[in-house]
């Protein structure tokens, strides 16, 4: 468990109004029981089959990095001048 409770975090100056948001947790707690979690557990788990996993295509970073520096768009008058037609 983390060092800070929601109540403590809510006391941070700009987060004070978030104390009201704690109401959301009470509502969820009141509506969903431990029994519900057991009944729905299999349906809410995200399971990916091994055969669904594909190898990522990778690109040569050096080429892309050089392209990024070379192609960086410049402001031209009132427009953004892109290096290619999009």
């Amino acid at each position: 468990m983390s060092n800070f409770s929601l109540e403590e975090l809510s006391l941070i100056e700009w987060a004070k109004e978030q104390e009201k948001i704690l109401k959301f947790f009470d509502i969820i707690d009141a509506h969903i029981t431990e029994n519900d979690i057991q009944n729905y557990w299999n349906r809410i788990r995200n399971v990916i089959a091994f055969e669904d996993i594909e190898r990522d295509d990778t690109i040569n970073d050096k080429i892309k990095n050089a392209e990024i520096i070379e192609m960086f768009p410049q402001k031209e008058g009132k427009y953004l001048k892109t290096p290619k037609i999009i």
Partner: protein
Amino acid sequence: MISEIIEIKKSLENEEISCSELIDYKLDQIEKNIKNSTILPITSAKEVAIKIDEKIRKNELLNILDGVPFWVKDIFLVEWTKTTAGSKILENYVSPYTATVVQKLLDSWAILVAKENCDAFWHGSTNENSHYWPVKNAHNNELVSGWSSGWSAVNVAIKNTVFSIWEDTWGSIRQPASYNQVVWFKPSYGTVSRHWAIAYASSLDTVWPIANTVSDIAIVMDIIAGKDINDATSRAKEWSYKEQLEDMDRKGKKIWYYKTFLDEKILDKKIFEDIEKTIKECEKRGAEIVELEAFDHELLVSTYYIIAMAETASNLARIDWVRYWLSIKDVKEIKELYLKSRGQWFSEETKRRIVLWNQILSQWYADKYYTKARVARQKLIEQTNKDFEKVDMIISPVTANKPPKIWETLNDPIKMYMSDVFTVGFSLAKVPTIAIPIEWYSALQLSTAYGTDQTNIKYAYNMEKLIKW
């Protein structure tokens, strides 16, 4: 068929206006109203217009979107342009990639004219949280334009653009429809690819168009919908949206409205009367009206916020100085770098969400609340699927009241969050939903079963004609 896209195609083919003149006109409009775009307009729009004019001179046949100007929300990556997501922290980020949805439109020779401002990382309900400036309502500049997509609504409403492409998580496309009188369509989750769109809440994000008519929405959906190998959640398009627009017989259709949503005590008088009148008109034309209780309002909003905020806090973890070229000086250690970049350049609303909602993802809170919220969502999905076995469509309002004045709601996040009650349920259930304007700030939300996006647009097309009673 009332369609601005078809009107433009006819005007270009008949040489009443050249594509270059059209684009110059749109660029002039942007210049007059620059605060509706985050970044500078794109020069290559003019070069594409010249190519379209050459096509016309050679009497080549024009495709449906040839030369049609469009804008995109500034969360879609477009190669070699800035993508800021309305934030300070991404102010100088230039993308080397183009989002699939934008590429599909560019491949159809639609012309990208500019990118639109939004609430920073679209955190907010009123478009007042942008790093750049708040967006004013198209009909009254003292009022807000709507949720984070209000910019698009205003641009379409005042005809800066023919259509816009945005991303919706909880209803940000539908509320501005009523506030600014334009048509918005949130497809089923997965209908349009989210590849290279900056993520908010990945299990809720949907990409969609905004236009002035349902016909234009159908034309754009025909181009952008479909399977993308780069987005595992995307689905194949089965048939044409535009061809589905033929007249529909309302007789025998079962229309369900939520009794608790149509309450005089909750709704503004005009909104209540407009929705009630629409339901009666449908009944007169042979539709069977079914009245049912809605899913618990408070549970809907709580479920949405716990899931969406936990996901957005997780997605925001990747946004830091190191990857996005923000200039931070005098930094001695990595912790200081993070504090200076994320601490200084995230908006108050974004920081609020990161701090509070990352806590939800910690082990104890995840078990106690996040898992429960996911169970609540699964219950809602199963309940909604069962409901759509009994009825053809659900009619509901989009928002309860007229748009608030600018800055009026920022100090009361709960009030802001509770304004989402009419739209979050459909987003959680992943079903297609469209908003059709009735009058200013009053709009009809029409939802159908998951995966029936074409049917939804067909019903909306006919409902649009009915509303113009």
